[in-house]
């Protein structure tokens, strides 16, 4: 029989399609349905030829589509009718605790859906990150777990940017980006310079395009002076990476750095303790991942605990969840903040 493999293939597809029916129905009749389907396909293949076989397959597909809805609605109605008899409260309870009911399918299906949605969402729309270092302290603390909106700063021209709210990165924005020295890490900093801006620091104060900035979001924790850090750009130092040196060579003129096209100059809000564009150069625009959206959980933990998974950390969370969670930061929305441009610096 030349079409035996086609029949086998159709049967396999059909047995997978059966999973669209409600579980009870599938368990009760799925086996027989597959058998009937196999019999009918076999008959068509032997007696009626390939066109009739595929016509039957199409007919079954249409039948499948209409009856899954029919059976699902019937199953839902049974659920509602059964519960209606025992007061609406029970239904409300069933809806509320749908995930926790001891029905293996409901439980598994919900989790599968949750995971599917989670995977979809985390790869396209939002992504979760944790802040492991204090470089943004003042705005973001070590242990802030946050969601990053991956669409907001999507590359111009991408599909998402045309469908969803979008604007280009502006000065004062918080951005999450791939750390240019090691793109496996994601950093969050504040944009200080966009292409064309001329930046320098004078006694810890940023001077952008010749004007002093008053930045309400920064904090300075050290009284000591560090020429490299506080009067940037001077000359490459011990902590300057090769990318940083390239920035010094190519973009520093007359004691200020000019941001080239397609790049951003970023700094941490915790200015005296931040590894940022001063040390490793510009962030390519393409490396921007998104915009910090929301701190969904803030937990007081050490940098080491947050950078690598450890049993001790899990135990610590288990024991101190309520006391070490910074409840006041939960659902905090980090904001873009504009620096005020002051007078002209000499």
């Amino acid at each position, binding site marked *: 029989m030349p079409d035996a493999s086609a029949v086998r293939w159709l049967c396999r597809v*059909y047995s997978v399609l059966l999973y669209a*029916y409600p579980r009870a*129905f599938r368990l*009760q*009749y799925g*086996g*027989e*349905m*597959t*058998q*009937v*389907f196999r*019999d*009918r396909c076999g008959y068509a293949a032997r007696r009626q030829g390939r066109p009739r076989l595929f016509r*039957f397959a199409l*007919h*079954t597909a*249409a*039948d*499948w589509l*209409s*009856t*899954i809805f*029919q*059976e699902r609605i*019937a199953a839902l109605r049974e659920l509602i009718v059964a519960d209606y008899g025992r007061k609406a409260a029970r239904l409300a309870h069933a809806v509320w605790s749908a995930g926790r009911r001891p029905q293996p399918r409901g439980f598994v299906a919900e989790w599968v859906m949750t995971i599917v949605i989670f995977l979809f969402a985390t790869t396209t729309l939002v992504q979760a990150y944790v802040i492991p270092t204090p470089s943004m302290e003042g705005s973001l603390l070590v242990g802030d777990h946050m969601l990053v909106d991956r669409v907001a700063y999507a590359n111009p021209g991408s599909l998402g940017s045309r469908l969803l709210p979008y604007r280009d990165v502006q000065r004062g924005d918080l951005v999450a980006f791939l750390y240019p020295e090691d793109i496996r890490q994601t950093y969050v900093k504040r944009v200080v310079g966009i292409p064309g801006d001329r930046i320098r620091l004078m006694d810890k104060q940023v001077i952008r395009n010749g004007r002093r900035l008053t930045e309400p979001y920064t904090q300075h924790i050290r009284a000591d002076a560090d020429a490299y850090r506080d009067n940037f750009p001077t000359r490459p130092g011990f902590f300057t990476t090769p990318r940083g040196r390239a920035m010094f060579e190519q973009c520093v003129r007359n004691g200020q750095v000019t941001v080239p096209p397609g790049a951003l100059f970023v700094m941490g809000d915790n200015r005296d303790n931040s590894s940022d564009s001063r040390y490793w150069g510009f962030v390519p625009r393409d490396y921007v991942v998104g915009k910090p959206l929301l701190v969904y959980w803030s937990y007081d933990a050490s940098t080491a605990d947050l950078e690598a998974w450890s049993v001790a950390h899990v135990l610590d969370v288990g024991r101190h969840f309520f006391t070490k969670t910074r409840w006041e930061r939960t659902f905090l929305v980090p904001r873009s903040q504009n620096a005020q441009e002051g007078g002209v610096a000499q």
Partner: protein
Amino acid sequence: MSKMPLPLTPPVFHILLALADEERHGYGIMQDVARQTNDALQLGPGTLYGCLKRMLAAGLVEESDERPDPALDDERRRYYRMTALGQRTVRAEARRLAGAVSAAKARRLLDHPRPGLAGGRA
């Protein structure tokens, strides 16, 4: 158990017809319905078992323990047979349909060829 209201849907009616003279398994019902209707009504597996489920719930059919045809049989195959209630229901439905058919005849919708027209054309 939910009762099955008249008029029956065509698949339910034809499934009852298929089970009127003997017990059949699912594929047997499908074949017989196609025969009854000259392939006009082809039951897909979903429709077939959806109907059987509701007919079992309504008590029109029941599962049969006997295996009428052990030679051709497969252990997993289930046979269905009509209950007394099923028989009464299919009779009532057939009567209803017969009434509908005679009404259609009375309005000359079924006679072939339609005498008035045929005479006029000749």
